[in-house]
């Protein structure tokens, strides 16, 4: 191979993002492609009832239609925007409350004993059961929807943070204390940096869980939101809109997760790559 050819190859490579150059990416694409081809085959041959599983083309058409003309008064963008707003608002609130609570509970046995019963009790409750009560208390507006998402996000954050704080090597603490560090310094320079990676992993899991509650949160008295759109379309057996909505929901979720990892890498450059 001449020098020129090697240079050319490198030039081409530069345009492919690093994660796409990995072998694992090819395997991931294989799964996606197999799924897609099965979908096409099953729908084209009439093996699947069109009412339950429309073909990819139908889904694409409904994507275009809802993007341009909208579904029940709002375009797809508005639906996604409304939902992402709800999720982020609730999630950020949960981070601001859950992470400090977790640090507190991880560092202090008394705090853990005080707060644990509350969290352990409501954590396994099904969101819909909780929601009925939230609607009665907070009404049918945004408050109850945000509260449900918030409550879904909270336990994962707290538990991950407790774990993270408890797993900090005690040597770090002893060294810091021995060198005369104040409580504030210990919190910001020992606890948070050392616990950061585990907290970030907890945040990612928690955000994923918040996502799963979205449809439930938008069932009651919503008129926009991707979860509501899916729920409403299901009522009218518009399965193309339902499936399209689910795909968009999934992709938005992946997008948010990538965004979180990106933020994590900026805030905590010492973090090892956390895996896919």
């Amino acid at each position, binding site marked *: 191979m001449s020098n020129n050819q090697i240079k050319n190859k490198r030039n081409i490579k530069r345009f492919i993002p690093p994660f796409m150059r990995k072998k694992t990416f090819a395997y991931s694409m294989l799964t996606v492609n197999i799924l897609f081809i099965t979908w096409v085959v099953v729908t084209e041959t009439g093996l699947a009832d069109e*009412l*339950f599983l429309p073909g990819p083309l139908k889904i694409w058409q409904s994507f275009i239609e809802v993007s341009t003309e909208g*579904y*029940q*008064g709002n375009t797809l963008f508005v639906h996604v925007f409304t939902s992402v707003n709800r999720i982020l608002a609730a999630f950020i609130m949960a981070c601001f409350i859950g992470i400090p609570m977790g640090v507190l509970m991880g560092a202090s046995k008394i705090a853990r004993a005080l707060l644990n019963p509350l969290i352990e009790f409501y954590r396994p409750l099904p969101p819909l059961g909780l929601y*009925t009560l939230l*609607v*009665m208390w907070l*009404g*049918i*507006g945004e408050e109850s929807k945000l509260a449900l998402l918030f409550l879904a996000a909270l336990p994962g954050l707290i538990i991950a943070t407790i774990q993270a704080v408890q797993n900090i090597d005690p040597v770090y603490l002893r060294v810091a204390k021995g060198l005369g560090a104040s409580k504030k310094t210990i919190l910001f320079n020992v606890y948070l940096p050392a616990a950061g990676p585990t907290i970030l992993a907890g945040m990612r899991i928690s955000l994923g869980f918040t996502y799963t509650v979205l449809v439930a949160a938008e069932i*009651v*008295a*919503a*008129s926009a939101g991707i979860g*509501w759109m899916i729920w*409403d379309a*299901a*009522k*009218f*057996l*518009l399965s193309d809109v339902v499936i399209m909505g689910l795909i968009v929901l999934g992709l938005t979720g992946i997008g948010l997760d990538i965004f979180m990892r990106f933020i994590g890498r900026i805030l905590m450059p010492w973090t090892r790559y956390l895996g896919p």
Partner: protein
Amino acid sequence: MKNILNKVSKTLFGSLSAMTLLMMTFPIEAFAKPKKITVGYLNLVNAQLVTKNLGLIQKEMPGVEVEHIKVGGGGDMLRAIAAKQVDFGGLGNPPTAIGVTRKLPIDGIMVLNMLDFVEAMVVRTDANIKSFKDLKGKTVAAPFGSTTHYLLLQALADEGIDPSSMTILDLRPNDIAAAWARGDLDAAWFWEPNLDKAVKRGGNIFMTSGIMEKRGYPTWDVGVVMKSFAKKYPEYVEKFVKAECAGIDFWINNPAKTAKIIAEELSLDLEDATRMMKGTEMVPCKKQLTSQYMGTSDDIGGFADTLVKTSKFLVSQKRLPKQLKRKDYEKFLDPSYLEKVVD
């Protein structure tokens, strides 16, 4: 997932039973008897409660396990039907129009009830709503996809009022009652037994589904059977219709006892149950075969026209992709079981 598993197991089961049928001798089919039937009934006030309470279906089918499942509204019932979780169901005209147009494998076999003031629009007394025009800027609730949602939008269209001039919320009947109690709503069009809770908490009735019927928009619930079930066990569909007809006759002939049954089934006061009963019109099975209702096998009646009208409306609302011809809605209505029972 459950749906797929269900389907797989059903196909497996279907092919297995077909094989056994082949292996055995032919007269087996004449004795085809389901092991269990599932009846989905709507959470509203009609004679299906009587049929259930008196065990009339069970009496018609000794040895068959009969299960009743309460379903909140038409939207949920459609999903239950699409997932093949019920053998018999009940649907209001909008969900029926959706189901038939989307080619769900169901047949309409009888009239369950005509909706009068058992469905009504309740308005908050202090909201000062005297006409549909006064709804502008207010918060109105209705279960989307149901008969009342259909009537609300139809009434607004008739009065030339833009629905976007008010907030219309999608809530299920029990959620409407809860939101109403908190004072979140100004008006709601829904049905008993929850309607009463709103009336008792500072509401009064502004419009009823009975009045809308007189304006040319009848709403009703029709009894449906899964096509696959009807094909396999036609005699059992007849038995079901017979039992429901007996329930309707009981309702008409024994109002006092019926009220007691309804009070028991829905945990209501006897007085409330009596009033709600009057708000639902039961049609004797013989009358169901007249042109206003199901009609006869040779001459399908007015229900087909309601379905055409409802579908047309749903298409204009973009809730349905397209509309079918009257002929197709006629095919859905099958009065033949009624005809056999009445004779």
